[in-house]
């Protein structure tokens, strides 16, 4: 057991919980939503908020792990996709979603295509988010087992239960606020780590040479082309298809601030991945990746090797807490998806608040159990698992959402068929393993697109009212 780290982790979790409660009460007192309160938030704070919403700490850990295990071009592919997330969202959907006035993706599908599409989308969100718990649990299990000195399996189970309790007690607001703080700490932490590494190796060139001396394949393309391309498109689309968070940021604040925040958020994201490149090179230069049970552990090894115990402990604690809040946001999305979007809105409109909350809690527990069971024997590297989630959501939602905003002729049957065909084909491809890993969306997403276009054209066009609404989404263009 690492005593310093454990103590810091404990203190950190207590402090972050207190901060969460404080902000939660404050938000309740003013009775205004965090994001509408965000109207008074300036670009600088907004940039950190949107950065924290997009950047998942487990994916940073995963990007570094994959770069060390599969060569640095794999890390760059990851970055090439994720740095494009916010610009891509702005280019294709942000302004239009803003004009539509909806706050979540299933809400948009209801407004544009109707209830059946909303229900299918809510089910897909639930499946995707349940699986997205797995990389979070894997990452926290690895850190937890190292810091607390327990085995990985026990760490995953204990932390999984902890996450569920925290989500059940805390709720969304505490999480949103602490996310902001953790996103900031994460960025500062990794930049400091990168500086320590660069000083230690006397500069970037020397660091890359050191990495190549230990691992001559560090600079190579080690996987099939399709794996890189599939990973890239899955991440590029992540902002468009990830439920709600990004969308809310754009939907609620005034347009100019939202855009500027996204632009500065991209700067922060770029800084994160530039520092990540340094960490990846340092990880390769340690030459220990083969000795680790799980390559994703390399991030923790780098922190331990280069940083003094106290700073390292703070960084690991921050990482762990950030993962916890991401996992909790996912659990809440899952429970809201079933209890609210499906049950309350469509099955039993008269259900009492207490009953709906109860269903939400049961759903959350079931999702955690499923996540824990898979994470005990993780089916792949963290980066690859995150890529699967992105690929699944892209194959199902990507085109129904974008065409819904851009193409008047897209109708309900087309959207429904496009969504189902993409999702089902993705599942078939991933379970049959005929393609290289992460290549599934290369086939499934275009199939979804074609099915949606063909079926829309073969069936009745949407009503004039709906078509006018699509024009309205685009009224900012003259």
């Amino acid at each position: 057991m690492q005593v310093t780290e454990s103590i810091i982790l404990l203190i950190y979790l207590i402090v972050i919980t207190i901060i969460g409660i404080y902000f939660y009460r404050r938000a309740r007192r003013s009775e205004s939503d965090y994001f509408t309160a965000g109207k008074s938030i300036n670009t600088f704070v907004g940039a950190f908020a949107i950065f924290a919403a997009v950047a998942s700490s487990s994916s940073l850990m995963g990007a570094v792990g994959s770069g060390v295990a599969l060569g640095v071009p794999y890390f760059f592919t990851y970055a090439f996709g994720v740095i494009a997330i916010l610009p891509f969202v702005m280019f294709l959907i942000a302004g239009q979603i803003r004009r539509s006035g909806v706050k979540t993706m299933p809400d948009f599908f209801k407004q544009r295509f109707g209830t059946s599409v909303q229900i299918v989308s809510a089910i897909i969100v639930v499946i995707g988010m349940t699986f997205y718990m797995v990389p979070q649990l894997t990452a926290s299990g690895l850190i937890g087992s190292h810091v607390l000195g327990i085995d990985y399996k026990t760490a995953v189970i204990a932390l999984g239960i902890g996450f569920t309790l925290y989500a059940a007690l805390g709720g969304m607001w505490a999480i949103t606020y602490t996310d902001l703080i953790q996103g900031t700490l994460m960025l500062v932490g990794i930049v400091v780590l990168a500086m320590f590494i660069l000083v230690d190796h006397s500069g970037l060139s020397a660091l890359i040479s050191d990495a190549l001396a230990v691992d001559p394949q560090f600079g190579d393309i080690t996987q099939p082309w399709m794996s890189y391309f599939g990973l890239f498109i899955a991440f590029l689309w992540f902002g468009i298809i990830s439920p709600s968070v990004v969308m809310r940021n754009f939907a609620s604040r005034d347009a100019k601030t939202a855009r500027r925040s996204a632009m500065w958020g991209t700067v922060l994201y770029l800084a994160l991945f530039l520092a990540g490149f340094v960490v990846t090179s340092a990880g390769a230069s340690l030459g220990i990746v083969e000795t680790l049970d799980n390559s994703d552990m390399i991030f923790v090894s780098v922190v331990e090797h280069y940083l003094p115990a106290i700073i390292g402990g703070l960084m690991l604690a921050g990482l762990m807490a950030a993962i916890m809040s991401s996992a909790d946001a996912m659990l809440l999305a899952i429970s809201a998806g079933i209890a609210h979007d499906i049950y309350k809105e469509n099955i039993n409109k008269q259900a009492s608040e207490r009953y709906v909350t109860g269903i939400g809690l049961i759903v959350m527990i079931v999702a955690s159990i499923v996540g824990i069971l898979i994470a005990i024997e993780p089916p792949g590297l963290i980066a690859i698992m995150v890529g699967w989630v992105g690929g699944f959501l892209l194959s199902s939602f990507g085109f129904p959402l974008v065409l819904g905003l851009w193409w008047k002729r897209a109708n309900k049957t087309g959207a429904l068929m496009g969504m189902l065909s993409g999702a089902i084909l993705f599942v078939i491809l991933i379970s049959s393993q005929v393609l290289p890993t992460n290549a599934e969306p290369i086939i499934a997403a275009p199939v979804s697109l074609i099915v949606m276009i063909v079926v829309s054209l073969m069936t009745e066009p949407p009503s004039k009212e709906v078509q006018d609404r699509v024009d309205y989404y685009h009224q900012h263009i003259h």
Partner: protein
Amino acid sequence: MATRSKLKDPGLMLTVVMVMYAALVFVWWPVDTYFKGISLVGWLMFIGLFIWLLLGVIYVLWIEKLEEE
């Protein structure tokens, strides 16, 4: 107004630029050319990170200019 003006959307035009650069990287795919020991593919993506940021900045300024008009 709608159908024609959608094609003039800065977002759509910048998406085309983004797709073109990504296509350059993934079609060319210079696996066996190395610079400082790292495959050129990696470096093209690295340059791409800055291009993405630049496109984001262009979009923000462009839309702000349109709004002023």
